[in-house]
């Protein structure tokens, strides 16, 4: 066993980090596919206010996070599946929630350090009980995603055909946002509100540059997210700087590296053609 894993706080950090990176990558695959990154971003910031409120009334910040993100996700889902106007509505909800968050902080200045850890994550200070909580939430999210996976994919690719085929667009997009809210609330524990994209968006976005296949892309996203998290934890252990910083740096570096290599043509998706003859030749 490596030296850093002898400490129970590091064991807890690795366990939680692995669970959360896995869940965030799977949910993030659909966040990227459905272009709802702004909703994910907003949910994390709304979660900040929830966590601040929880600290204020003296309960576990996770419950505040969950309460705020889940109700915000429901509100966003009810706003409908149409993208037009939705970003504006999300922005307005976000502004209100952040305003509340600032008020909560001012009311309880004694908890400035709590606010700091909500914003940037507390992965090194996680208890065994919190590991169990994140495992339970993680399994619930993955099960939920597994249940709605196929119609969610269908409506993300062909919304009109899916609707005609009987897929309830509004209900499914609301359910999906609830799963995003759960995943985001969890991920805040590791990387904090401000760096949520490091685990939610960067790994699946990177994976999608590497393959157009669904399960391989999901697998690559999970492996990337988990490796980046482990890297961040080990670096934090040896340097004493924030794990969130290293995780975010690794995620961005991997993304940029892949884009560079794809751009240079070293790796990436080949456009396979079985025949040399193009299918749509010019009209005579």
């Amino acid at each position, binding site marked *: 066993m490596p030296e850093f894993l002898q400490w129970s706080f590091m064991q807890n950090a690795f366990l939680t980090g692995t669970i959360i990176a896995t869940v965030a990558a799977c949910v993030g695959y659909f966040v990227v596919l459905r272009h709802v990154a702004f909703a994910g971003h907003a949910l994390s910031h709304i979660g900040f206010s929830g966590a601040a409120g929880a600290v204020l009334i003296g309960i576990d910040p996770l419950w505040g996070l969950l309460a705020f993100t889940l109700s915000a996700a429901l509100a966003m889902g009810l706003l409908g599946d149409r993208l037009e106007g939705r970003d504006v509505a999300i922005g307005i909800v976000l502004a209100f929630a952040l305003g509340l968050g600032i008020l909560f902080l001012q009311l309880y200045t004694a908890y400035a350090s709590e606010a700091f850890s909500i914003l940037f994550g507390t992965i090194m200070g996680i208890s065994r009980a919190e590991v169990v909580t994140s495992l339970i939430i993680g399994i619930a999210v993955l099960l939920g995603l597994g249940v709605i996976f196929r119609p969610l994919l269908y409506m993300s690719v062909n919304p009109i055909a899916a609707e*005609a*085929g*009987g*897929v309830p667009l509004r209900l499914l997009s609301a359910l999906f946002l609830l799963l995003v809210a759960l995943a985001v609330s969890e991920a805040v524990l590791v990387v904090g509100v401000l760096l949520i994209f490091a685990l939610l968006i960067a790994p699946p976005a990177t994976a*999608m540059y590497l393959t157009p296949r*669904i399960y391989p892309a999901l697998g690559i996203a999970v492996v990337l997210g988990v490796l980046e998290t482990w890297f961040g934890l080990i670096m934090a252990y040896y340097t004493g700087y924030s794990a969130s910083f290293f995780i975010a740096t690794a995620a961005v570096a991997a993304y940029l590296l892949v884009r560079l290599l794809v751009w240079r043509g070293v790796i990436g998706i080949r*456009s396979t053609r079985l025949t040399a003859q193009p299918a749509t030749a*010019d009209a005579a």
Partner: protein
Amino acid sequence: MAVREAQQQPALAQDRPIVEVENVTVRLGGRPVLNDLSFAIYPGDFVGLIGPNGAGKTTLLRLLLGLVPPSNGTVSLFGHPLTRGNHRVGYVPQHQTFDETSPLRGRDMVALGIDGFRLGLPLPSQEKTAKVNRVLREVGADAYADSPIARLSGGEQQRLMLAQALIGDPDLLLLDEPLANLDIRSRRDVVNIVCSVVRQRNIAVILVAHDVNPLLGSMDKVIYLAHGRGVIGTPDEVVQTDVLTRLFGFPVDVIRAQGHILVTSAEEGGECHA
């Protein structure tokens, strides 16, 4: 006003109609978009749905899919009242676009046509793969089905959409402008594919287009829509100067030459002078 049924249905009278639309009016935003429309479509019918922009063609397809309710009249599919999400109907929407950032293989999208509406994980199976391969060959898209859809040309994407609609073995196929953006050869290919599917499987298809010419020789019936009103019949019966003049409400000339039909009017032609 009532729609003129330009022809009786002697040949297929013994068949039950696949689609039966009776005196249907559809209002959208308080305005009648389809007005007192009646027609019937039988197994084996290749129907062209023609009309200018805003005539209500897409609305008519959405009506048959149960996505917009009729404010008057009745619609029945396969002899039953309309239901949403009927899996005996295959549909290719108008203006489907795939964006660059979501790479997904054409074959994965086509497979969603089998059971995309069903909960659970899409697990690959030999049976499904064989089915996907068969329909990809049928529409001539097997060469590029493993590429990300977003990288394919509009015509190639159109064929994959057609494959997705066909893979559920529909009895009614609704195609909204599948010929838009296609060159002459691809247009002919798509019409031929659709035509042979209709003949082989004895299903019905409604294909929306702006121009009758690509469909001449393949389609059995044409529905001409204008101002929410419509005429149905064989192309020879409907595409006539007097019929279309009455439908459009202004003088229309129908000129037939060398197997082509030109529908034109004195009102055509721009007015932007140098």
